[in-house]
C-alpha cells in the first residue's frame, strides 16, 4: 500500500483531538496515510484554503459546509462533511458583573438563566461567538428566542481572545469551545453558566470536511482518512484512555496548550468559577460513543433550517452530510452504525435502542431544552 499524503487544516481547540490522535498514535500511518496537520489562523482562512484546494480536508464548524453548500457563507463551494468529528463541547459564560445578578442560577439551568438575563433590563447582552456559521450562534439564537425580552447582540471574537474580550468589557457573555471558557475562569474574569449540551443534548459541533469534488475523485484517500479518524475517535472515547489522551494532546505541538486546560473538556469536569469545585457534565464532549461520528442527514437539515434555508435548501444540505460514505468506508473495521440516516431531532429524552448495521445500538438523548422536535422527512414527503 503506497503512502498517501494529505494536508488537513485545523483550528487549535480541544475538539480537533481526533485528528491529532490519528496522527500521534499512528492510526493514520496504519492506513498508509501521512497526515500533515496545518494550523489555521481563523475559520475564514481555513475555509478559503480548503475551497481553493490548498487543504485536502479540514476540522470545520458543522454549519460551515452546510452554509457553503446552500450558497451562504461568503464562498459558495460544494463542501461535504465526511463524518462528525465531535458532538457538544461548548460552554456559555458571563462576565463577573453579569454573574453577580445571577447568584441563584445553578449551572445548566437554561430557563432560570434566560429569565435572569431578561430581568437585567433593556440593554442588549453582547455575546461573543467564534464565527457567524457556528453551532455556537445557532444554539444561542435558538435558546434566546424563548425569551422575547432578551436582546442579544452577537459579536465575533477569535476564541483565543474571548477571555480578554470579557475583561476589556468588549462582551458581556460568550459561547465558546473549550479550553477558552476555562481560560476565562482561570483568569477570573467570567463565570460559566451552562454547557452547549444543556440547550441541545446531541449537537454536532465539528465535522471532518472536504470538497465534494475532491472526495469523489479521491475515494481511496477519503477511505483511509475516515478510517484513521474513526479509530482515533473510538480510542479517545474509551474511559481508560482519557488521562493518556490529555497528556498526548498537551504535549503535541499541534495544540500547544497545557494539560490542565485540556482535561476539563475530555473528562466533563467543568469548573464554573474561580475557586469553585468542578461540576460533572454528562456527555460534555463526545467523539465516538452512541454513533457520535455518524453524519446524520437530519442534523444537516436542522442546521440548514436554522440558517434560514427553504425546503430545497434543506434537501441540498442533507446530501452534504455523507452518511453514504460512512456506510461504505467503515463497516469492515468494526464500526457499527444506525440503519437509518435520519432521525427526528430532539425526540430522544433517554438513551434509546435503535436498529443498527450489526443488530442494535444505543443512541444518546438528543432532546432540546424546550422539548421541541424536528422531523425533516415529513416536511418534504
Amino acid at each position: 500500500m503506497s503512502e498517501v499524503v494529505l494536508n488537513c487544516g485545523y483550528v487549535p481547540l480541544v475538539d480537533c483531538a481526533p485528528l491529532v490522535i490519528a496522527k500521534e498514535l499512528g492510526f493514520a500511518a496504519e492506513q498508509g496515510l501521512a497526515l500533515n496537520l496545518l494550523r489555521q489562523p481563523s475559520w475564514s482562512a481555513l475555509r478559503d484554503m480548503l475551497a481553493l484546494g490548498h487543504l485536502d480536508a479540514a476540522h470545520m464548524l458543522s454549519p460551515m459546509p452546510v452554509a457553503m453548500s446552500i450558497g451562504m457563507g461568503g464562498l459558495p463551494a460544494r463542501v461535504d462533511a465526511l463524518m462528525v468529528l465531535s458532538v457538544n463541547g461548548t460552554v456559555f459564560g458571563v462576565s463577573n458583573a453579569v454573574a453577580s445578578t445571577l447568584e441563584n442560577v445553578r449551572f445548566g439551568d437554561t430557563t432560570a438563566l434566560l429569565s435572569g438575563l431578561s430581568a437585567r433590563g433593556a440593554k442588549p447582552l453582547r455575546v461573543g461567538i467564534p464565527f457567524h456559521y457556528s453551532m455556537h450562534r445557532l444554539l444561542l439564537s435558538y435558546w434566546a428566542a424563548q425569551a422575547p425580552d432578551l436582546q442579544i447582540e452577537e459579536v465575533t471574537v477569535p476564541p483565543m481572545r474571548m477571555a480578554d474580550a470579557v475583561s476589556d468589557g468588549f462582551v458581556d457573555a460568550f459561547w465558546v469551545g473549550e479550553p477558552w471558557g476555562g481560560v476565562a475562569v482561570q483568569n477570573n474574569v467570567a463565570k460559566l453558566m451552562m454547557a452547549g449540551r444543556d440547550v441541545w443534548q446531541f449537537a454536532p459541533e465539528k465535522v471532518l470536511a472536504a470538497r465534494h469534488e475532491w472526495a469523489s475523485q479521491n475515494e481511496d484517500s477519503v477511505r483511509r482518512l475516515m478510517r484513521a479518524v474513526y479509530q482515533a475517535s473510538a480510542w479517545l472515547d474509551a474511559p481508560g484512555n482519557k488521562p493518556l489522551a490529555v497528556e498526548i494532546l498537551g504535549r503535541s505541538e499541534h495544540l500547544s496548550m497545557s494539560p490542565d486546560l485540556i482535561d476539563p473538556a475530555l473528562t466533563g469536569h467543568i469548573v464554573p468559577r474561580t475557586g469553585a469545585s468542578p461540576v460533572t457534565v454528562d456527555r460534555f464532549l463526545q467523539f465516538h460513543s452512541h454513533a457520535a461520528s455518524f453524519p446524520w442527514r437530519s442534523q444537516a437539515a436542522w442546521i440548514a433550517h436554522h440558517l434560514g434555508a427553504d425546503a430545497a435548501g434543506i434537501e441540498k444540505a442533507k446530501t452534504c452530510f455523507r452518511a453514504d460514505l460512512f456506510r461504505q468506508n467503515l463497516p469492515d473495521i468494526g464500526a457499527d452504525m444506525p440503519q437509518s440516516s435520519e432521525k427526528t431531532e430532539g425526540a430522544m429524552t433517554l438513551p434509546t435502542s435503535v436498529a443498527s448495521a450489526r443488530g442494535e445500538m444505543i443512541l444518546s438523548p438528543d432532546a432540546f431544552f424546550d422539548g421541541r422536535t424536528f422531523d425533516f422527512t415529513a416536511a418534504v414527503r
Partner: protein
Amino acid sequence: MNENLSILVVEPNPERVRDIVDALREAGWSDVKALLQMSELNQTVREFSPDIVLIDLTNPDRDTLEHISHATETTKRAVALFVDQTDENLTQAALNAGVSAYVVDGLQMDRIKPVLQTAIARFKMMRQFHFELNAAKQALEDRKTIDRAKGILMRQRGMSEDDAYKLLRTTAMSQNRKVIDVAQALVTAADLLS
C-alpha cells in the same frame, strides 16, 4: 480611473499599515483609510463604508470582519468575499502574497483588479523584507554562537582562533553536519558542564 474607490486597510502593525496605505496612495487612490484597532472595526465600516477592505490572510480578526459583512447585509453596503475564483491567477497571487480582500457586491472586476495588484505587490515586498530581516538576524546569532565555541576551544585547548575554527569545520565535515550545529552542541555542553 482611480477616483471614487474607498479602501480600508485593516492591520495592527503601524509600520506595515503605513507601507500599504502609502503604496495605494502613490498608485493614485486617495480615499484610503487605515484601521489598527479591531475594537473600532464595526464603527469604521459603518461610517467609512469602504468599497474594498484589505486584510492579511493570516489575521485572526478576519472572522470578525466577515461577521460585520453579514450584519450589514440589509444595507446597500454589502461586503462580499473577493476570493471567488473568477480570476484564478489573481486569486492564487493574492493567496501566495498573503492578502485577502472584501469588496462591495457588484463592483466591477476591472476596478478591483488594480487595487489588488498594488496590494499584492506590497504584501509580497513586505514578506520578502521580513524573510531577509530574519535571515540577517539568524546569521548574526549564528556568528555569535560560533565565536563562543571558538572561545571555548581557545581557552580549554590553548588553540589559536584560526585553529579553533578549523577544528569546528573539520568536525562538522567528518560528521556531515553544519559548523553552526557543531558549535551549538559545544556551547550547550560547555554550559551544562560549567
